[in-house]
């Protein structure tokens, strides 16, 4: 396994994802002799994991079971240890497409943060591309390097510990795309421009506040970027539920025995055929929105170097 190549069976040294149930999962470093505690019991790596097929069901010591999944950047994003606020797959998806990333792309990123986007970028540019990622926090930079090594992608990424606003990305005129997620992106636009290839490079800046966006757009214009475009994207998840609604008792007309209006047994009754006259309910399937959803992550500004 690696984050850029699928494998079939679990091997010693792999990072695997243990899936317990609805949005309950965690990553695990597969190692001979190790055990992992779960609420369903213990998982013994040597017997329960190593050699098993990814996607297998593993029964834990207490009898409950889990699934072992092959890691992907998306699963990693949902389970990685946060050192900073991270980008989630919704934003990552549109960033990847709007920066026109693909195998072979050279991309620069700052800040590395917790490596959420980094893993996704590495996956997309593999096997012939490269990610140059800059992080000004020394420990975070080191932790990122460590993770890339563990995930067997270190050959595709270079982590540099410096301040991108002062010292840039460490490369010039070769990047197909640059991504900025820093407090003052307008200070790095010049460096971004010099890192980008001569023509047609793409840039993206992510900022939570509109004031940051305004300054960044101005800087992009000053540096001659074109096609400047700002957008935001939000995910709306629906829970699939069968809903039962009661039919209200509207009583009966004086002599007439037939019910008025809402006759749930008539063929013209619209919607679901699942009526239950005995209980006086109507059933239907619905995609129910969540009670609380993410209302904002940040604004994404894209532009092209001309």
């Amino acid at each position, binding site marked *: 396994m690696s984050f850029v190549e699928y494998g079939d069976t679990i091997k010693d040294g792999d990072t695997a994802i243990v899936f317990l149930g609805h949005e309950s999962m965690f990553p695990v470093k597969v190692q001979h002799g190790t055990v992992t505690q779960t609420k369903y019991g213990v998982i013994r790596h040597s017997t329960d994991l190593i050699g098993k097929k990814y996607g297998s069901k593993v029964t834990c010591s207490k009898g409950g079971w889990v699934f072992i999944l092959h890691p992907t950047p998306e699963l990693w994003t949902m389970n990685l240890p946060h050192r900073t606020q991270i980008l989630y797959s919704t934003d990552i998806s549109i960033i990847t497409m709007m920066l026109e990333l693909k*195998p072979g792309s050279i991309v620069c990123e700052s800040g590395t943060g917790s490596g959420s986007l980094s893993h996704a970028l590495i996956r997309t540019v593999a096997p012939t591309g490269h990610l140059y990622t800059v992080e000004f926090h020394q420990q975070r930079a080191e932790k990122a390097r460590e993770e890339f090594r563990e995930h067997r992608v270190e050959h595709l990424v270079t982590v540099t510990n410096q301040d991108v606003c002062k010292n840039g990305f460490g490369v010039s005129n070769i990047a197909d795309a640059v991504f900025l997620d820093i407090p003052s992106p307008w200070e790095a636009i010049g460096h971004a421009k010099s890192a980008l290839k001569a023509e047609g490079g793409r840039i993206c800046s992510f900022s939570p506040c509109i004031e940051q966006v305004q300054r960044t757009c101005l800087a992009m214009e000053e540096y001659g970027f074109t096609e400047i475009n700002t957008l935001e994207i939000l995910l709306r998840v629906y829970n699939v539920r069968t809903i039962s609604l009661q039919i209200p008792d509207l009583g009966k007309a004086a002599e007439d025995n037939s019910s008025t209006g809402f006759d749930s047994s008539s063929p013209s009754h619209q919607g679901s055929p699942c009526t239950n006259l005995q209980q006086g309910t109507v059933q239907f399937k619905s995609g129910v929105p969540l009670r609380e959803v993410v209302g904002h992550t940040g604004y994404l500004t894209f532009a092209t170097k001309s």
Partner: protein
Amino acid sequence: AMESGPGARIREGDCAVLKRDEVFKAVSVLRRRKIIFEKQWFYLDNAIGHIYGTTFEVTSGGNLQPKQGVEETTTETKEAGTDNRNIVDDGKSQKLTHDDIKALKDKGIKGQEIVQQLIENSTTFRDKTEFAQDKYIKKKKKKYEAVITIVKPSTRILSTMYYAREPGKINHLRYDTLAQMLTLGNIHAGNKMIVMETCSGLVLGAVMERMGGYGSIIQMYPGGGPVRAATSCFGFPKAFFDNLHEFPLSKVQSLLSGTLTTETLPADSEDNALVEEESNGLAEEKQPSLQETEEEPTTETAMEINPTEEQDTMDIIAEDGEFKENKEKENKENVREKQMKQWERRKKLLEAAALLREKNADGLIVASKFHPTPLLLSLLEFVAPSRPFVVYCQYKEPLLECYTKLRERGGVINLKLSETWLRNYQVLPDRSHPKLTMSGGGGYLLSGITVVLDKGKPDCSNSEALKMEEPSSKRCKLQDLPC
């Protein structure tokens, strides 16, 4: 290998995309071929050899000329008003008549100069606020300074173009939804992907772009053959197509039950299928829309399509050399040729069937006009465990049913039904706000991950499935019944 030099150059035969502000149009780069775009007629000849991304002006002769530099119309502080309380819109503030303007245009006066003339001849211009003046100038520039940029096709460009121009051809798949599919599906180099789409080949092209020519793709298709009109616009190198296979949906059941024969192929009149494929690139594709037949109302959006414009997104001439016309005189050769073609098709079918039979695909992408449930239930059989799948549907309801059926089937986890909400912004000093119009909906996605399917013993009883998959809804027990 990707070109990382000083930018790719426009070559004859390329599929290029013309861009003006937010309007795109894909065209074939051919000499001496008149192109219509945004109310202008011109030839692309002069563009050949220039780098993609170059901006051109249309000369009076209908030729393209690279735009020199970036001129700014007078930025010196002009006289301006404070608000519009005294400005009356009686349609009489512009002193130049239509004829005057036409005369200027005919004289060959540059657009920039025409805009200047309009400003000088507007009685209300100096009363407008600075912002209103800005807006006025932008509007006039847009109308009279016709600049066209020629850009290299990519998923970003083509998906935006199709969504704006011909959403019906792509089942109203909005570009951000497509972006989600590519990421949720973990599309990357080296995968063995199964793709089923009726989006003119746009989704296939997007998948191919993210795979970079590595790995393999099996495209499932309805009817006689896959439509790949959009795919050809990406400009992929030939090698990318070496590992692109196709397999007819009509043979899926027999493949699954082990009774596949090659006796009746869906397109034994392959000439028909191939001709159909080409003509779909030529003329408007008449996709029988069983859902709705009403026209898309043209609204004033940032990506407005002028209603008087021709409807075609593509101006592509059929490739020559590959499809010979059958002449009665050459019967014998025709028969032999037909036999060769049939043999080729059978060979390819068996190759694709063998790949599918391995049941180890790394992912499944579905984006079609068909009801998703039967597609998912059958095509998932070909996917390895612990691999993602993503299904797109223009409507939510079929995905509700699909979700339920998948739960009953088992062998999938992490099912998620979602849509993305997208908003574009205008960012200007003191004038930043969301844009005035936005897309009402971009379709829905159902995604999940496969796991080893326990056949024989009941995979999960419903209640167990509930334990694993559904959140325990502690409230609202009266109303909600988890599926």
